[in-house]
């Protein structure tokens, strides 16, 4: 659905269902240079399972107008305001890559807001190499291609997709190409500059789930494991794929998230 939010046309995917925020709300936040289509195989799945699903395009990304947020904190504040605007409650946050940093910051600033937090291919620090930062500025399309190549495992490279007839590389590039040109550059800079991840990780006092990728070149597994170890109460899984694991291993990821959500509901009952 399209809404006018903070004076800009903003797209919020709802997984093909009407938004009913009287239910548990799953808020999916995309990574650097991505948009709501990062979660194409999660949004509909959880919406049809009866959850209220919110998958926004951050400003300047996908179908949303406006200028991209310039820091992780600014991203977190924007999402907080959006969740309030939509009257979301019982919120489970799902972040991919940069979205994980945003989730950490959101939970740090508003510790009572979330009831669960899920990190997909995440870490608490995402340093970006200067080459990619420069390329995102000078030749964004080339940077998209590079990220799409780095971001997938063998399945991606060989065009193996559970969605019939799909090519990860072609899809990945065109999803990134929907954003305004400097979206990737500003996102990567925001990731690179974020230094509060360790502190924010230690402050997590809600059940957490981390799903990491064995062949992740964007947020390497080593960094992800270190991150998971800092969190008090974090269930973790490692899938045999690259960074874009929502696309490469959608069914496995959905089952892991479903199981986590079931456990979360049981915790409330107790």
């Amino acid at each position, binding site marked *: 659905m399209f809404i006018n939010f903070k004076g800009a046309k903003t*797209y919020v*995917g709802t997984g*093909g269902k009407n938004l009913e925020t009287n239910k548990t709300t799953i808020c999916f936040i995309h990574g650097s240079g991505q*948009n709501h*289509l990062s979660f*194409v*195989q999660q949004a*509909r*799945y959880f919406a*049809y*399972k009866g959850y209220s699903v919110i998958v926004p395009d951050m400003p300047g990304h*996908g*179908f949303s107008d406006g200028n991209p947020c310039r820091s992780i904190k600014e991203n977190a504040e924007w999402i907080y305001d959006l969740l309030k605007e939509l009257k979301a409650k019982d919120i489970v946050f799902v972040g991919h890559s940069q979205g994980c940093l945003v989730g950490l910051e959101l939970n740090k600033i508003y510790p009572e807001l979330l009831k669960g937090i899920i990190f997909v291919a995440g870490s608490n620090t995402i340093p970006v190499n200067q080459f990619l930062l420069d390329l995102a500025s000078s030749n964004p399309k080339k940077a998209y291609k590079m990220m799409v*190549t*780095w*971001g*997938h*495992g*063998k*399945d*991606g*490279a*060989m*065009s*193996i*997709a*559970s*969605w*019939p*007839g*799909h*090519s990860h*590389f*072609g*899809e990945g*590039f*065109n*999803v990134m*190409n*929907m954003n305004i040109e400097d979206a990737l550059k500003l996102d990567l800079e925001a990731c690179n500059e974020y230094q509060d991840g360790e502190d924010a990780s230690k402050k997590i006092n809600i059940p957490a789930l981390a799903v990491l990728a064995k*062949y992740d*070149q964007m947020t390497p597994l080593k960094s992800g494991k270190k991150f998971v170890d800092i969190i008090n109460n974090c269930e973790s899984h490692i899938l045999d794929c*690259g960074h874009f694991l929502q696309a490469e291993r*959608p*069914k496995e990821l*959905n089952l892991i998230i479903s199981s986590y959500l079931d456990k979360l509901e049981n915790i409330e009952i107790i």
Partner: protein
Amino acid sequence: MSDNYKFDTLSLHAGHIPDKETGSRAVPIYQTTSYVFKDTEEAAALYNMEVGGHLYSRISNPTVSALEQRIAALEGGTSAIACSSGMAAMHLVVTALCSSGDHIVASSKMYGANINLLQHTMPRFGVETDFVNPNDPEAIEKAIKPNTKMVFGEVIGNPGLDIMDVPVVAEICKKNRVPLVLDATFNTPFLMQPFNYGANIVIHSLTKWLGGHGIAIGGAIVNGGNFDWGDKEKFPTISGPHFALGGISFWEEFGPSALTAKIRAEGMYNFGPSLSPTNAFYLMQGIETLPLRMKKHMENTHEILTYLKDHEAVEWVKHPDLETHPDHEVAKKILPKGSGSIIVFGIKGGRKAGQIFIESVQLASHLANVGDAKTLLIHPGSTTHSHLSSEAMKEAGLTDDMIRLSVGLEDIDDIKKDFEKGFRAAKKLIK
């Protein structure tokens, strides 16, 4: 870290990794109509397009899907749909984009069945087409109307071998917010990938060079994922709400793959032009050697061009790689590896001489196909384009004496020897 595999590697591997349970190196032929659901939840998820997977082979099939993913990778598209023929692919695209009251701008110089579909069949359903010269970008732009939903042409025209200046036409389409749909059968992704030049949708007859062995009919639609379908007034059935899946907006839900999702959910589901898994397997076997075959096709084509253009029995020869071809400069720009292995030529002595030539050669086969590994010949005026009026024939660049030659992979000396027999027989008759 994944690798950015090159074309030759993708031709062999894309769309399939060895089966984890059986280790099968070749793509298995999933000769099945349907798939057992684990539970009702999984069944519902597939019907609702919540996740990818297969529910019925009219809509998708694992073997066909491997072929689709290979083609999508080779073209650099977001996704592909394979179907029962190239004409089925064409029809799926037209019906996905157009409704009654809509309009198409199409090349006047293309395959007879394409012209038939747009000139005679679609008007019965309220879709009108204006045919224009594909080499006249101004005419193309002039023909675009507010209700135009696609510009359609062939990269290399059949059988006239006109070359569309794709980047120029693509720019016109972009400016007018109309998708450029190209039949890229004659070039294959080995010679040219239309998305690199701004095209939005590619159609293939897989029967031809991609399959390459004349054993299976098939077609494909490849989605470039580079067109903005967000104009709800112009593309209401893509940007939604669509009757399928509870009023879905394919554009909002699937973005660059919106068109593919729509064709899968509507075209494949409602019309059912599915490709058999066995034919998909045959076609994939062909694609595995596409780079090798195309190199040899082009090598032989260039040899035959030299042979024909100097031959005393030949009146004229047409191929875009010849400097005499009116589109030679465009061909050099967009088809640097060569302009395909179809040659058209006229034999001295006109229609009768052509007929004798075709009936006298022994190695080359007289039949209605192109792109086989074997050398093929036909007289378009009396076969593939015989249903066209004289005016349409002229417009399509056809003449009575024209022979269409699809250069095969035989030893070049044997092809030449065979042609000599044909030329001698024709000459004898004329004398």
